[in-house]
């Protein structure tokens, strides 16, 4: 019994210390967001007063277009989520079900290409989109549509493994039955595969949503104008250098922005972990 106790003791010691480590920044940001002074300096780790002034500042201060940032983020991330899942799903379907020359080479090539972070070719993307801006100012550098297009460059590679794994798990008899009935590959895709895959497509698009939400460097490079920024770029610029003054509002803003992501993440835990072991790493 004593040995049992000793065994549990070290487990709890590890668990409690690591929990404190994990929770400390989160606890801090929560009490900061309710701290009426809104300053980075906290005199005590046990809050003595409670106020919503930071949250009010976030929504009422005209110099912080927080709601616009949120809207931008949701629009950009949603469009990328939907379009990239359509692109990824059709590629996964083709890789899984269609017979064609160069299939193996194709998928190996895709696997290699998607391993290079987009940021490596950043200078080139910048120059190309700067040129596009010269003749098509609505889709070039510095615009949200331009950013969307660049994001979609990765659409086929990023989620294809999860999707292909799922397509592989759908029994092939269904397709063959459809084929016998005279259905084309397109019809099989739209009428059999898509309805069956709807739940997994929803999961993958949510994952893609989180991924886009977390993207910083391209968004930073593209969205210069205050009102076109995403939450991440907006909050970073807003806090940049002036931690002491803007901390409270930043704390409130980062909490509001994080809650939906944390909820999505926790509810999709199962899929994310199976995706993890498939070799992908969250950004």
């Amino acid at each position, binding site marked *: 019994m004593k040995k049992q106790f000793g065994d549990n003791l070290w487990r709890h010691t590890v668990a409690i210390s690591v929990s404190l480590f994990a929770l400390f920044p989160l606890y801090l940001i929560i009490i900061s967001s309710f701290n009426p002074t809104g300053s980075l300096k906290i005199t005590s780790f046990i809050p003595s007063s409670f106020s919503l002034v930071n949250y009010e500042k976030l929504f009422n201060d005209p110099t912080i277009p927080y709601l616009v940032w949120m809207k931008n983020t949701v629009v950009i991330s949603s469009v990328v989520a939907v379009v990239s899942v359509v692109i990824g799903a059709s590629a996964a379907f083709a890789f899984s079900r269609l017979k064609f020359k160069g299939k193996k080479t194709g998928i190996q090539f895709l696997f290699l*290409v998607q391993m290079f972070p987009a940021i*490596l*070719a950043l200078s*080139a993307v910048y120059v190309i989109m700067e040129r596009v801006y010269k003749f098509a100012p609505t*889709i070039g550098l510095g615009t949200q549509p331009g950013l969307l*297009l660049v994001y979609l460059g990765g*659409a086929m590679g990023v989620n294809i493994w999860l999707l292909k794994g799922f397509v592989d798990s759908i029994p092939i008899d269904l397709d063959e039955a459809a084929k016998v009935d005279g259905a084309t590959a397109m019809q099989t895709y739209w009428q059999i595969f898509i309805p069956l895959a709807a739940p997994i497509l929803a999961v993958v698009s949510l994952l893609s949503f989180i991924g886009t939400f977390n993207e910083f460097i391209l968004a930073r490079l593209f969205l210069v104008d205050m009102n076109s920024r995403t939450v991440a770029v907006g909050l970073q610029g807003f806090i940049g250098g002036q931690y002491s003054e803007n901390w409270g509002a930043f704390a409130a803003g980062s909490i509001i922005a994080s809650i939906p992501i944390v909820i999505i993440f926790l509810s999709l835990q199962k899929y994310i972990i199976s995706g993890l072991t498939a070799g992908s790493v969250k950004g």
Partner: protein
Amino acid sequence: MKINFYLPKILKYITLLLVFSLLLLIIQSAIATREFQIAIFLVLALILIAITYLSSISVPLKFFLPGILFLTAFVIAPILYTVVMSTFKYQTGNYISKEESIERIKLLATTPDESGTTFDIVLGKYDNQFAVLASNPIDQQYFISTPTNKINIGIDQVDIDENGVALKAPNFDAATVLESSELDQQYSTIRFKYEGDYFILLEGSSVGAVVRQSFNYNQDADRFENLIDDQVYTDNGAGNFANINDPEDVLQPGWRSPIWFSHYMDIVRNEKVRDPLISVFIWTVVFASLTVLTQFGLGLLVAMAMNKAIRGRKIYRSIFILPYAMPSIMSILIWAGMFNTEFGAINTLFNSEIAWFQNPNFSRFAVILVNLWLGFPYFYLITSGAMQAIPGELSEAAQIDGATPRQVFSRITLPLLLKIVSPLLVASFAFNFNNFNLIYLLTGGGPRNDLDGEVAGATDILISYTYRIAFGTNVQDLGFASAISVIIFFIVATISLFGIRKSKVLDSFS
């Protein structure tokens, strides 16, 4: 039933029509601005879309084409373009094409007349031509000047203000103040007629200077000649016209010019380029290795502690996942605030006054610590999953044979575990090798000695260093940044191929 049959077709043709008209519109304006490479790509895309969706040549292509087009435009083309850019001098001052550069030098290369004459100017139109109304209140000299003509006007014909500046003249259509501010840009490139070789160039929207061309471009010899001191400037092969008697004397702006492998040569030979790059490279490797080691170590420890149904395991587990569930950008910004020297929570907590981000070693420690926080849950999840996959009989058998728990762990559990997670360790290494967000948002790559013009900071990893070279400093050197990117490509490719070979992931595609 009929509707069901026709609806997809109708939708398809409407979509195709929209895509075609949009593409045609963009192609047309691309050609109009002479962006032929982009235009050719778009024309090819258009043809491919048409062939693929209007015929049945290839069914798989119908599924792949949108993905392939985006991939080509925004991943493959930029990668290839990066390789091309790395062989160019492509930086601030050498950013435009040679033709544009010649035009700019011609425009800028002017010298004022000996007495530095200037006129007060009103912008406007004369005879439907761009024109200026120039006044010299002291000599009471007034004239209208167009690019081709100078029309002198007597003082009795103009309306002057209290300073003697002419505001109106016959046949001169003066621009309003608002118009002037918009026309400024346009007028500043026009040369208005004066006398002989001299002409008037605007300096702002209300003053014009009498200048003359000081450089002449000799197209046949591809060189500039200084008309005043007869110096000759030739193409120096590095993106500038340089004085043949003094190679340091170059005309600005230069152009992006092919210099082949000079950037790569510099990395090998020039120690001012090589030394910072090597130290950044070493830190990148150290950072990525330490990150993987610490994240995996803590993750493993936690997984071992949780590998038994202790009380509160579910709650602990939820807590451990939280850092991973938070958007990492927000977490990094929060940590950056916590490390603030004066007000940060960490110095408050430990009652210390450490200037975290001013000291190289403290910054490096902070970077590793924050990354540990961000990443240990990932390895906790992985290793606890992997532990369940290790058959229990193995360790039981070893225990029966008299192995101590420590021996069981180090001889059986750990080796098996490492075998399962090693591809993920490699993947994590590759990911952290390019973990731009962490470095950029936490320390900005610093501390660095800005006064010495140092570009590489103590916590800069290759990718953040590259970003800084390309976008961060006064001289934005896209060419050199591309050369480093190409090197990183090869490093990442090597690591990844190594990882793939280990995990045999490519075999599963066959």
